[in-house]
C-alpha cells in the first residue's frame, strides 16, 4: 500500500511543479521586461534599469524561477507591484475569506446535492424523481454570479435580511458568517444541481448491477440494500465529479467575491489583473492551480478507500 501512496504523492508534487513552471513562463518570461511595462513607453533607460535591479529582474530566468519557488516555502512571494506590500501578507488576509467561503459552498453542494440525488433515484420514474430532475436541469444552467445578483436582489434589496455585500472581518464571527451565507448559496447551489444529476445517475447505474440483486435475494430490507450496497458503491463517480467540479467552484469564487464585494483571493486576482500586477497574479494563480491539484490528489486517495479493488493495483 505505501508504495501506491508514495507514487501518488510524487506525482502530485510533479504536477505542482509543472504547473508552477507554466505560470512562470506565461507571467514572467513571456511578458518581457516587466519594469518597462510598468513604467510605460516614455520612461528613460536608466530608470528602467534601476527598477529592474530593484525587482530582481536582471537575474537570469532560472534564478528568478527558483527564488520564487524557494519563496513559497519561506513565505516571501515578492512585493506587489501595485501596493508595494508583501504578496504573502496580501494573500494571507484574503485567504481567511475565500477558504471559508469555498468550504461553505462545498458543504451546500454536497449536503444538498447528494442526498437529493439518492432520494430521486430511489423514487425512480415517479413524481419526486421528475421534479428533482427538472430542478437540477435548471440549476446547472444558472451562472453562479447571476444567482448571486438575484439573491441580493431578493434577500437584500427586497427583504433586507442580508446586507448587499462586504465583509465585516472575523472579529465579529456571527456577522462574518452571515455575510458568507448568500455567497455560499450562490456558489454552492449550481454545484448541488450537478451533484443531484451525477448521484442519481450513479445510483441508478449501480442499482442495476448483479450484486444488488444478490442482496435482494438475501431478503434484506430495501433501505439496507439501498444504502449499504447501492449507494456505497455509487459514491466513486460522485467523488470524482466533486473533485472535477472543485476547479469550477474556485473559479466561481472569483466571480462571486466580485458580486458580493468580499475581500478574498478571487477579488485580489481580479484587482491585480486590472493593475497588471504580475507579481501578485503569479502567486495567486499558483494558489488556484495548487488548490485544484491538492483536491484532486485527495480525491485520488479517497478512491483507495472507496474501492478495495484499487488497493491491489494502484
Amino acid at each position, binding site marked *: 500500500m505505501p508504495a501506491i501512496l508514495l507514487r501518488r504523492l510524487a506525482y502530485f508534487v510533479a504536477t505542482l511543479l509543472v504547473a508552477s513552471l507554466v505560470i512562470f513562463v506565461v507571467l514572467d518570461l513571456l511578458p518581457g521586461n516587466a519594469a518597462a511595462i510598468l513604467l510605460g513607453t516614455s520612461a528613460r533607460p536608466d530608470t528602467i534599469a534601476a527598477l529592474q535591479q530593484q525587482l530582481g529582474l536582471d537575474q537570469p530566468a532560472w534564478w528568478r524561477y527558483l527564488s520564487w519557488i524557494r519563496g513559497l516555502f519561506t513565505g516571501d512571494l515578492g512585493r506587489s507591484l501595485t501596493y508595494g506590500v508583501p504578496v504573502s501578507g496580501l494573500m494571507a488576509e484574503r485567504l481567511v475569506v475565500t477558504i471559508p467561503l469555498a468550504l461553505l459552498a462545498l458543504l451546500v453542494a454536497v449536503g444538498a446535492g447528494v442526498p437529493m440525488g439518492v432520494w430521486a433515484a430511489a423514487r425512480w420514474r415517479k413524481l419526486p424523481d421528475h421534479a428533482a430532475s427538472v430542478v437540477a436541469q435548471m440549476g446547472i444552467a444558472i451562472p453562479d454570479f447571476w444567482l448571486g445578483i438575484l439573491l441580493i436582489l431578493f434577500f437584500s434589496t427586497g427583504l433586507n435580511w442580508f446586507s448587499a455585500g462586504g465583509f465585516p472581518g472575523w472579529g465579529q464571527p456571527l456577522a462574518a458568517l452571515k455575510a458568507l451565507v448568500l455567497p455560499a448559496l450562490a456558489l454552492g447551489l449550481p454545484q448541488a444541481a450537478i451533484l443531484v444529476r451525477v448521484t442519481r445517475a450513479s445510483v441508478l447505474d449501480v442499482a442495476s*448491477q*448483479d*450484486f444488488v*440483486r*444478490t*442482496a*435482494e*435475494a*438475501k*431478503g*434484506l*430490507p*430495501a433501505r*439496507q440494500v439501498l444504502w*449499504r*450496497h447501492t449507494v*456505497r*458503491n455509487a459514491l466513486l463517480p460522485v467523488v470524482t465529479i466533486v473533485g472535477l467540479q472543485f476547479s469550477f467552484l474556485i473559479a466561481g469564487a472569483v466571480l462571486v467575491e466580485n458580486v458580493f464585494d468580499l475581500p478574498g483571493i478571487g477579488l485580489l486576482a481580479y484587482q491585480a489583473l486590472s493593475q497588471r500586477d504580475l507579481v501578485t497574479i503569479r502567486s495567486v494563480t499558483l494558489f488556484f492551480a495548487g488548490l485544484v491539484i491538492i483536491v484532486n490528489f485527495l480525491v485520488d486517495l479517497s478512491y483507495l478507500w*472507496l*474501492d*478495495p*479493488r484499487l488497493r*491491489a493495483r494502484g
Partner: protein
Amino acid sequence: MSLAVQLDAITLRQWTGRSQTLVRDVVLDIPDGTTLGIVGESGSGKSLTALALMGLLPAGMRASGRILLDGTDLLQLPATAMRRVRGARMGMIFQEPMTALNPSMRIGAQIAEGLLAHRHISRSEAQREALRLLERVQLPRARARINDYPHQLSGGQRQRVGIAIALAPGPKLLIADEPTTALDVLVQAEVLQLLGGLIRDLHMSLLLISHDLGVIASICEQTLVMRDGAPVESGPTGQVLRKPRAPYTRELIAAVPRRDESRVAPGQDGSEAPVLAVRNLVREYRTGTGRLLARAVDDVSFDVGRGEIFGIVGESGCGKSTLSRVIMALDKPTSGQVLFEGTDLFAVPPRALQRLRTGFQMIFQDPRGSLNPRHRVARIITEPLHLDRNAPRGSALDDMVVQALTDVGLSPDDARKLPHQFSGGQRQRIAIARALICRPRLVIADEPTSALDLPVQGQILDLLRSLRDRYGVAFLFISHSLAVVEAIADRVSVMYRGRFVETGAPAQVLRAPEHAYSKQLIGAELRADQPRRYGVAQALPSHS
C-alpha cells in the same frame, strides 16, 4: 417444504401501454428433498420463471397465477412478508460470480448480513456462523480468507461464497440460475459436486436452470424443457433425455455436437509441407524489473497439415488465447518460431509480414464484438483485402462479396445490412466469410461456437467442415468444450498451463486419455447420456 407452481403468465408492460406475454402456463412441482432442472435455449423464459418465484422480476414485469410455498401463495404476499420468505425459505445463486458480490464489502460480512436479516443473533455469532458456512462450502483456508474482498478470489471461489450466502439463513429450497455456465469444466464439476453434497446433507430441494443438458443430467431428478416462454415437456430426467416425446426436445438433444464417425479426414500426405509449423514457442510475461510473472506459452511445438483441422482444448488460463495471438503475429513470442508455409513470421520485415497475412486469418468467440456495428456487411467482409494491391474493385469486388456470402449460407442481399440485423449465428457466418475472403490457407478459430446456442453450434461446425472440404483451408480450432472439439477436429491437443500435455487422434485423446490432467478433464465432462452423479446417496433405480 413443498413448492407447487402454477404460473399462468409473466407479462411485461411497455411504455406504449401494451402488454407482452413473456412466459405462460408453467406448471412445476418440487416436493421436499427433490431436484428439478429447467432446460432451454436463451430466451426460453427459464430465468424469468426463477425470478418470478423469488419475487425478483424486473420493474414492469408482473407474474400471475399461483406460487404455493408450503401452502402460502407467494404472489399474494405483501412486500414485507415476501422479504421474509426470500432468503430465509428460498435462496438463489446466480450465473456470474464475478459480479454477484458487493465489491466493497468483505465476504464474511456479506454472508453474515443474510443471517442477521432473518435471525435474531449477535454480530459475533453471525461471524462465527459465516466461517462455518465457508468451511462447509469448502473454501480453502476459510479462516484466513473470511475478511477478503471478492476481487481477491477466483471465479469458482466466488461461486462458493455465493452458495454460502444463499445457504446462510437456512432455506429449504435453493434456486440456481446457470450456476456453472461461467466456470471452467473442472471447477464446474467441483461446484456441482458441492451442490449435490449440500442438498443431500441438508435435505434441501434444488431448482437448477441451465442450457446445458449435461449439467441437468448430472444432478436433477426431474426435468422441465422450456421454449419461447412455454413448457414443452417434463418428467423424470432419465426419461426426458433418453426417450423424449416432444420433437423440440429431440432437436435439443441431437444438437449436442457429435463426431461423425463415418466421415473420413482427408488423407495426410506425409511429404507435403505443413501449412503451419510451431517450434518451441515460448511467451513469458515479466515485470518491469525482469521478474518472471508467468509463462503463458511454455515450449509448444506442433504442425498443422494442409486442410487439417487441429483442435486445442483447455480451460481458461491455459494459454490457448495467448498462443493463438502469437501464431497470428499479433503478439511477439519470447522465443521460438512460427513458420507459416515455411516462412518464419517473426524473421521477416513488417511489410512482408503484412503481405503474408492474407494467408492466415482468424475467427473470434463473440459474434457481437467481432463485427463493427457501424459498418455494412460488405465492408466488413472485404476488410482483409485492403492489403492486397491486386484486389479486385468495382463489380468484380461485388461478385467476390456475393460468392463469400453464399459460401457461408447467407443471401447476397445481406451485403447491405448492418450487423445488428442478424442473429448470433448469422454474425458468426459473416465473420467466417471475412476470414475466408482472401482464400487463406490457415484459419485460427478461437472459441467460435462458445457463445452460440446449441443447435446453432452444430450448424457452424458443419459450415466450417464444408469450407475445409471445398477450399482446403486448415483450421486451428480452439475450444474449452470437449464435445465440440471432438466433433470437428482431425487431431487434438490438450493444453494445460502453457503446455501441450497430450496430442493425438480425438478418439484416443478424448475417450482414452493417458496424461493425468487429460484424464481429469475428460472425467469431469458432463454428458446428457450419462446417469445422475451428484446428490445421489446411492444409485437410484431408473424410472423409465
